[in-house]
């Protein structure tokens, strides 16, 4: 099989005439800022000393958000970070507990004849729904009550122990949801809810 550069030219090509190869220096200030930020965040350096640019010693205040110690009341916007304000209770809920996954999880527990954990979660979700209606009306961000946080923690614990493969549609979904749930777990723990 041989290819040449005239193969597969699009009959209705995109207009690329605005772009041309042209010498362009990198933006050193930006590179330096990026290197500093990586340093602050402790991003690994695969090959010894980092970027060749000299990184000055000045240390701007790190902006790492500290999760509030709030006896288990968890604000979803905290969980999602500064940019994470999400309107709508359902949308917020979906971020922390993807409906499809949770319902497969519940079904699995039911099939095994051990619905108690699920019922706890379900009750908490109902309570949350009621609580949430008020919050939504007043435009607040949803907060998890301690009960809800604990119920969620149980699900997470269970999932951490067994992996998500039995509950998720495919391994990619399982991987992603697992990571996210672990992030929630870390957050809950930092907020004082322990998942043991």
């Amino acid at each position: 099989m041989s290819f040449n550069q005239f193969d597969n030219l699009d009959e209705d090509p995109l207009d690329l005439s605005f772009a041309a190869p042209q010498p362009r220096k990198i933006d050193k200030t930006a590179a330096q800022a990026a290197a500093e930020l990586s340093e602050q965040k402790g991003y690994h350096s695969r090959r010894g000393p980092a970027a060749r640019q000299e990184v000055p010693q000045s240390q701007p205040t790190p902006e790492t958000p500290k999760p509030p110690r709030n006896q288990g009341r968890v604000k979803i916007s905290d969980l999602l970070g500064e940019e994470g304000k999400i309107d709508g209770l359902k949308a917020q809920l979906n971020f922390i507990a993807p409906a499809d996954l949770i319902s497969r999880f519940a079904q699995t527990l039911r099939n095994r004849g051990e619905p108690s954990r699920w019922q706890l979660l379900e009750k908490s979700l109902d309570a949350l729904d009621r609580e949430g209606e008020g919050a939504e009306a007043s435009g607040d961000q949803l907060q998890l009550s301690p009960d809800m946080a604990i119920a969620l923690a149980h699900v997470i614990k269970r999932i951490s122990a067994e992996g998500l493969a039995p509950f998720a549609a495919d391994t990619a979904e399982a991987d992603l949801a697992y990571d996210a749930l672990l992030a929630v777990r870390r957050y809950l723990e930092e907020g004082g809810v322990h998942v043991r």
Partner: protein
Amino acid sequence: MFNITIANNKGGSGKTTTANLLGSEIYASGGSIIILEGDPNRPHARWAEKRGFPVIEGPKTSISNTEEASLAIADAMNGNRLLVITTDGDEGSVLDWIEAAAEHCQFLICDPEGSPNQWLQLAVSQADMVLIPFAPTTLDADQVQATIKSLKQTERMSGRKIDYRVMLTKASNGAVRTRDENELRDALTKNNTPMLTVALADRPAFRGVFKHNKMLSELDEADAGGLQRARENSKAFAAEVIGILKTKAQQVAA
């Protein structure tokens, strides 16, 4: 030259596939393209070798400055319009490659490996546009937010504006959308998160490019079904990205 960097702290979000599709569309439109890859698994390099495009193995090509990088690129491209440069995640060389690439292609696509790292931060700091792909059926959202947050931090520290777009990949194709997906889209829209309107659907043909080491335009129906719609989708995606860059170019010129 325009630098498009694909970023998401989350692994497996579709970065490499997105980079390949965009690169292939540019190529098919007659453009010149360099893909700079940070992933030590070198998916682009393997694809390019099998497809018959030149590859520079960064770790084996000892360059110590931009001039040497530029010579290496000229040598490797040798009239080709698509080149892959692998770096094995080595952030020490990424800035040299980026600066050198400017002279040799219209578009540079930087595709990092899927975890927060310095390579990614450096590429982002030089980007004309950062694309943040993520799959909607997951809880990827907090990673999107984390990615945006570090973009903003770099922006603040450097005073250089970073233009970014969040985009959906592996989205349900067309008529049927999951509730999660709708809610995610709504949430991001309400948040004023800059988003591409075109989402890349979850299509076998998009997996097929790496499976068969071809460009999307070279796959045939035996490789993957639904080719026509996949091609339309990929083209619409690339057209949107290129359109945004074109507008920027016109604004700069004005």
